[in-house]
């Protein structure tokens, strides 16, 4: 009887232990995991991996998609338990946190720097200026507009001669003629006020990125103009945007214009087939009287491919990353329509994908001439939320613009002071 007990208990324990044991293949092949957050780019990424496997039959790469909301929570947990995916996308929002804490492998020896712009390289670098990723893509922000509404109001389509004044005039005329909203200016940074701040000659951070720059006259000019747009009848207010995003409003034909990143254009064409042909995209309007500069700017961000500093197969993974950053790898990415390759000279591979649609996306590529690197410093995760909360308070009128800007300045400075103490 007692024996039976022992046996049963032993079986129970064995059963529990079995759950913990893993297994590793030992036949020379290497299986790598590749984590991304955009399901629309899965096929493009898989095509790139397949091309690598075709050249190196021993290496198999599995693409895993984890959506944006969970991506960073999971990656952080994986980092803490030393179980990072072999290859993963890295975003400028987070790269400094990972790079500056020594979690990413140095990639300087596998990136052919002459083929990438300074902005692309900077977006893949840590605070120490070392490359911790292989530049993947680059993006810009354009002005998407509804052609039918412009026609109905008898207004010429936006082009590179447009200034802020034209944006306001056209919005008013469209509102008067059709009753639809004009330009929809909502509380967003990359797809909103950042662009206007840089057009006006201001900036969000100081040149060395160690402090905020919200009290600069150019910054204030851009913010005042952008936030003020919601006071017009032709622009919905923030309570509207809390329930209806500008994209939703645009594609349900409630508004004529909004700012959109090039990375969303392809899926919008696919998701709104009835709207295809009714809309197009133009470069951003310029500031007519900037405090400094020529009034032109658009925010440009870029992702990179990265790997963990302690990866078991670092040599193999770096060879894969090198391929991802090569002309061949970047061409496959561009031709899949996934994103504009960071590799200079391959922009047209992405543009070519849109030949099938009645839309001209070359403006996104044209804007690289005067694009501004997406705003970032090591403290951004800490000041991002407070700054956007303060922006909402300016919109609701709880704070006036001046007080609000001072508060944003303080929020950025307080958070940044922890990271850039010596410069204070």
């Amino acid at each position, binding site marked *: 009887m007692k024996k039976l007990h022992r046996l049963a208990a032993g079986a129970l324990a064995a059963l529990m232990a079995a759950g913990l044991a893993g297994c590793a293949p030992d036949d020379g092949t290497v299986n790598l995991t590749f984590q991304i957050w955009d399901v629309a780019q899965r096929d493009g990424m898989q095509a790139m991996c397949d091309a690598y496997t075709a050249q190196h039959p021993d290496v198999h790469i599995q693409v895993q998609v984890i959506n944006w909301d969970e991506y960073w929570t999971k990656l*952080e947990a994986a980092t803490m338990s030393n179980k990072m995916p072999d290859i993963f996308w890295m975003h400028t929002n987070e790269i400094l946190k990972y790079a500056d804490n020594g979690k990413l492998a140095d990639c300087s020896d596998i990136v052919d720097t002459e083929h990438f712009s300074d902005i692309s390289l900077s977006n893949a670098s840590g605070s120490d200026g070392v490359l911790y990723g292989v530049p993947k893509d680059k993006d810009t922000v354009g002005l998407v507009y509804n052609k039918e509404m412009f026609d109905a109001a008898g207004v010429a389509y936006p082009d590179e001669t447009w200034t802020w004044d034209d944006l306001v005039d056209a919005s008013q005329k469209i509102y008067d003629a059709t009753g639809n909203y004009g330009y929809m200016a*909502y509380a967003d940074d990359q797809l909103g006020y950042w662009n206007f701040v840089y057009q006006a000659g201001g900036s969000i951070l100081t040149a060395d990125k160690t402090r905020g720059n919200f009290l600069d006259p150019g910054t204030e000019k851009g913010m005042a103009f952008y936030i003020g747009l919601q006071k017009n009848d032709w622009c919905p207010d923030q*309570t509207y*945007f*809390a*329930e209806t995003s500008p994209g939703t409003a645009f594609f349900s034909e409630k508004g004529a214009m909004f700012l959109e990143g090039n990375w969303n254009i392809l899926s919008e064409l696919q998701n709104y087939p009835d709207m295809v042909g009714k809309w197009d995209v133009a470069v951003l309007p310029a500031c007519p009287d900037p405090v400094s500069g020529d009034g032109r700017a658009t925010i440009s961000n870029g992702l990179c491919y990265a790997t963990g500093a302690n990866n078991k197969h670092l040599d193999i993974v770096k060879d894969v990353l090198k391929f991802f950053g090569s002309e061949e790898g970047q061409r496959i990415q561009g031709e899949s329509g996934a994103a504009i390759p960071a590799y200079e000279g391959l922009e047209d591979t992405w543009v070519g994908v849109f030949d099938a649609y009645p839309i001209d996306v070359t403006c996104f590529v044209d804007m690289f001439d005067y694009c501004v690197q997406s705003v970032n410093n090591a403290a951004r995760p*800490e000041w*991002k*939320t407070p700054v956007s909360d303060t922006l*909402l308070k300016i919109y609701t009128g709880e704070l006036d613009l001046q007080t609000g800007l001072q508060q944003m300045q303080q929020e950025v400075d307080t958070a940044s002071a922890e990271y850039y103490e010596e410069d204070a």
Partner: protein
Amino acid sequence: MQKTSKLSRDGAVWGLVMVAPTVIGLLVLNIWPFFQAIYMSFSKSLPFGEFEFEGIDNYVEMFSNAEFWKATWNTILFCILTVPVGIFLALLVAVMLNSKIRGRTTFRAIFFLPMVVAPAAVAMVWKWIFNTQYGIINTMLGQNIGWLTDSRFVLLTCAVVQIWSNIGYDAVLLLAGLQNVSATLYEAADLDGASKVRQFFSITLPMVSPTLFVVLIMRLMSSLKVFDLVYMMVDDANPALSDAQTLMSLFYRESFVAGDKGYASAIVVWTVLLIGIVTVIQFIGQKKWVNYEV
């Protein structure tokens, strides 16, 4: 003599083996993290799960932060809005479902349905119902009320959805309590000529009070911990965000958006204290109204 003690020792060992999975699970997944959270609340959090002990700084920062007090008040207000009304309605539904009406089983199933639906799905549907421009409520009223964007209404709107989601579950618990009430009590009351209302207050309510107490405790705890509903219904671009932000939403933002897990742990410890105090008050108060005699 010895035989018995050996047998009972053997039984005890088996007992322990049998409860081990649960106990180990509780220790590893609940108890240990709880103590860790307390430790973290006294620490400065560094990236990637590293902590550095720093004393009460997080608490000093928390208690001097207006946003924190606002969230505490919102949480308490949310309880005041949801718990009494919610339990009253649940009791009403339970009494009705306990009476002899046609299609009683169908109604029971219908009232329980919200419990089966994922909270995220519930929130998405209600978001549409309350939408300012296209929502069915404003369309019916012919109004343009910002149910989810006006700072005066946003918490009330969330409370309505919370009550709706929980009525069925609470009602089923109360129904179980009601069915234990012996029919002879009502027969006796009928003979004595007591009205239905009198029967409810003199028989039903005292007899169901132990279940009511359990429901009250559970509901208060879950209202103090409300997160998913508010998180789903009020997003970051909503100007009324600060009027709907509960302690758990604030915790989420500090912990997972801003990455300050030390400060976020202090918020959690505060919430645990709050729940503890409310529960203790209830256990003292129950002596006055909960009837454990059958």
